[in-house]
């Protein structure tokens, strides 16, 4: 049986060399179709993946409507919290873990006066951030809850920044100066850059460069360090006109995250949020019914349309493209197989069964698929190089040709071709031995 299979493959390979034009057209058709789908799929895979699969169902964004039906957009609460609500959630401490965060951009002043200051961008957050998001550490670790409380000037830096400033040495315990403020390094993260950056969609940092620094939220606010990201203020005018009145105002700029372990905890947290909103209404701050949201990572990515529409559109079009190439292949295979009707007739007359014909022609199609897949691989590689022209570089960088994509390319090419070959093969197997012999 396996000897027969190899023989069929050999026949297939030999047949490829006949009808060079038809064969070449088929291989090109499959190659282009597969390559177009694979390239766009690689991008889609890169942008639509789960950035934190092990925890995405346990991390939630709690949102509170502080605008009310008059000013909110389409009934949805704003996509971040103001300082008042953020602090209330932190104080209540109703989740297993909780953190608030906002982007900060601070100027690093190298000790060497010859080197120019440069910006280091990262987040002001709470100590739970690191354990909630499974941030890996190279040296040291996160600061602790006590240091959050005491607003300590501590900092966690990234591996890349540690490399730049300390040549990669263990810098835990050393001092670093950012915008004339001294920070003590408590930890160095290992390479960590989840994409899309689900925890900071509010500031449009889905595909931003990796963050380099993390400092305590409490310290940043105490030092009046401004957000390096967005502020979103409603049209109701309650914004404040100084640092203090702004903190108590209704502009939102803080991304909240909580960790909840099971459905019961989620339910309890929802009740807590609604209770909080009712308290605010009773206190006269809100004059509307509680309108809160609690979404996990995937729901949040969906709601925020984290997958760029370009990627979805091109994936759908590329799939359509593959279908056309397959229709084309069916037609060409039909032509190729039916051209050999006399040969089939002879083989059938000499005792070959229909099953034999099936096996032979499907094997031949597999060979065409393999060749098409090989061409498709080359075209996919070329396409990956050209991705930067089509998608934003931050997104294009994410897509890469790895072993799984190579295998998938070959598999799709062969699978699709064999699938396309079913009808032409069936037609070939219908050839009547006698009829063909007669006409010869």
């Amino acid at each position, binding site marked *: 049986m396996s000897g027969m299979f190899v023989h069929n493959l050999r026949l297939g390979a030999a047949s490829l060399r006949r009808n060079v*034009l*038809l064969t070449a*057209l088929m291989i*090109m*058709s499959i190659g*282009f*179709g597969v390559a*177009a789908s694979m390239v766009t799929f690689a991008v889609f895979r890169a942008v639509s993946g789960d950035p934190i699969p092990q925890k995405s169902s346990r991390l939630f964004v709690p949102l509170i409507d502080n605008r009310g039906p*008059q000013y909110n957009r389409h009934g949805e609460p704003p996509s971040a919290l103001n300082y008042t609500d953020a602090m209330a959630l932190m104080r209540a401490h109703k989740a297993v873990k909780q953190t608030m965060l906002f982007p900060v*951009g601070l*100027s690093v*002043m190298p000790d060497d006066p010859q080197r*120019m*200051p*440069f*910006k280091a961008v990262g987040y002001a957050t709470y100590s739970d951030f690191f354990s909630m998001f499974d941030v890996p550490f190279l040296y040291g670790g996160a600061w602790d809850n006590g240091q959050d409380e005491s607003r300590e000037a501590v900092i966690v830096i990234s591996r890349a920044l540690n490399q730049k400033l300390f040549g990669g040495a263990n810098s835990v315990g050393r001092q670093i100066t950012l*915008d*004339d*403020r001294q920070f003590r390094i408590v930890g160095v993260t290992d390479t960590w850059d989840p994409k899309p950056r689900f925890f900071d969609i509010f500031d*449009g940092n889905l595909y931003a460069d990796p963050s380099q620094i993390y400092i305590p939220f409490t310290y940043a606010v105490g*030092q009046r*360090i*401004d957000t*390096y990201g*967005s502020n979103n203020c409603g*049209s109701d*005018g309650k*914004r*404040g*006109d100084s640092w203090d009145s*702004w903190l108590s105002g209704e502009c939102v700029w803080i991304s909240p995250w909580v960790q909840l372990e099971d459905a019961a905890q989620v339910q309890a947290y929802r009740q807590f949020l609604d209770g909080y909103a009712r308290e605010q209404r009773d206190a006269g701050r809100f004059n509307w019914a509680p309108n809160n949201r609690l979404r996990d990572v995937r729901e949040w990515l969906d709601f925020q349309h984290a997958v*760029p*529409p*370009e990627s*979805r*559109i*091109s994936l*759908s*079009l*590329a799939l*359509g*493209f593959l*279908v*056309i*190439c397959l*229709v*084309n292949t069916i*037609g*060409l295979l*039909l*032509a*190729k197989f*039916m*051209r050999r009707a006399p040969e089939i007739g002879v083989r059938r007359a000499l005792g070959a069964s229909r099953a034999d014909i099936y096996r032979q022609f499907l094997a031949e199609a597999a060979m065409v698929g393999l060749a098409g897949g090989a061409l498709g691989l080359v075209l996919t590689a070329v396409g990956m190089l050209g991705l930067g*022209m*089509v*998608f*934003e*570089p931050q997104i294009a960088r994410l897509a890469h040709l790895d072993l799984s994509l190579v295998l998938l390319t070959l598999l799709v090419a062969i699978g699709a071709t064999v699938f396309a070959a079913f009808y032409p093969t069936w*037609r070939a197997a219908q050839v009547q031995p006698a009829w063909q012999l007669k006409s010869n």
Partner: protein
Amino acid sequence: MQIKPILSALRRHKAGTFLIAMQIALTLAIVCNALFIIHQRIAHLSEPTGIDEPNIFVIKSEWVGHPDSARVDAMIREDLQVLRQVAGVQNVTPSNSYPLRGSGWDDSVKLKPDQLQDSSGATIYFADQNFIDTLGLKLIAGRNFRADEIGHMDMRYRLAPPVVIVTKALVQKLFPGEDAVGKTIYLIGGPGTIVGVVDLLQAQSVERWASDFAYRSVIIPERLNISLGSFYIVRAQPGQLDSAMHAAVKALFAQNPRRVINDDDGVLSFSDVRSRAYESDRGMAILMGVISVVLLAVTAAGIVGLTSFWVGQRRKQIGVRRALGATRRDILRYFMTENLLISSGGALFGVLLAIAMNLWMVTRFEMHRLSLTYLVIGAVMLLLLGQGAVLAPALRASRVPPVEATRSV
């Protein structure tokens, strides 16, 4: 030309006929939609900013340390002084943003202080008296800001400038058909009187969410003092953009080294700004173009392949027809007509498919409705493609000699 014999011949090749028709239909559907996307993206990225793009560059200077508002204002004024003296610099203005930057300050505009709903959204550009000249804007009514009207404000201070300049697009929304100069609009912090109207000034973002107020901008006579940093928009003398860009950065560091001007986006010529802003639109247009071309080629190849096969199969019949007096032209016309029939059927189905596909994209991706022109252009294109692809095999068929009728195969 009789169509009947062709149709009856096609009935013997149901599969091949169906496959070619399907391929034409699918290709038509995708190419129509692709062309439509290309056209939309190109239309989007050719929207004008209203400014003198070839001669403008932008510097983003971020302060080191944490200077207070008064200090920031002093440093900005020193920087402006320095930039003004750089060789090749024609004019300079400080601002919080610029068209195509992609972020900045958007806010609501109202006509009455107690109004609940906004009258319009608008991009807020902070500026001084040199803003209009630096950007090359066209003042079409009223006047520019006077130097003594230019104030400065902290990021969180109330936005309530006594005077503002607005764009024509905002006037058309707020005061259609009226003279807006002298009228009052209410920004978030209070009223401002319109003293001037400029013709065209695009909003800071060209994303879809900002399309509501694409050209509605309000120019505020204040320097916005943010401790993080600010933008200097510089207009170079014609032809001196590159040298002025280099010299400007050097001069700024010489004046005050306590700043960060990023290597990759600290100084951008406006053409860089433009290409960054439209990266995904341009990319999408290129992708659609490539897909369409390859698709048309694949379809043409399929038609050539199948028709060649048919011709090969029918050599004997062709020979018989030739022997019975059919001319070469008759044979040629036969295959051309056959293809035209198949393609027309395919195109008809393809038009329906294209509309369906477009409707699906309208609901999924908030796309616009496909216009009839694209369907017509697409259908004609595919009919021509079919005729072109069938030409070579049909010519080969027409050269089959009548003697072929006597051969046994």
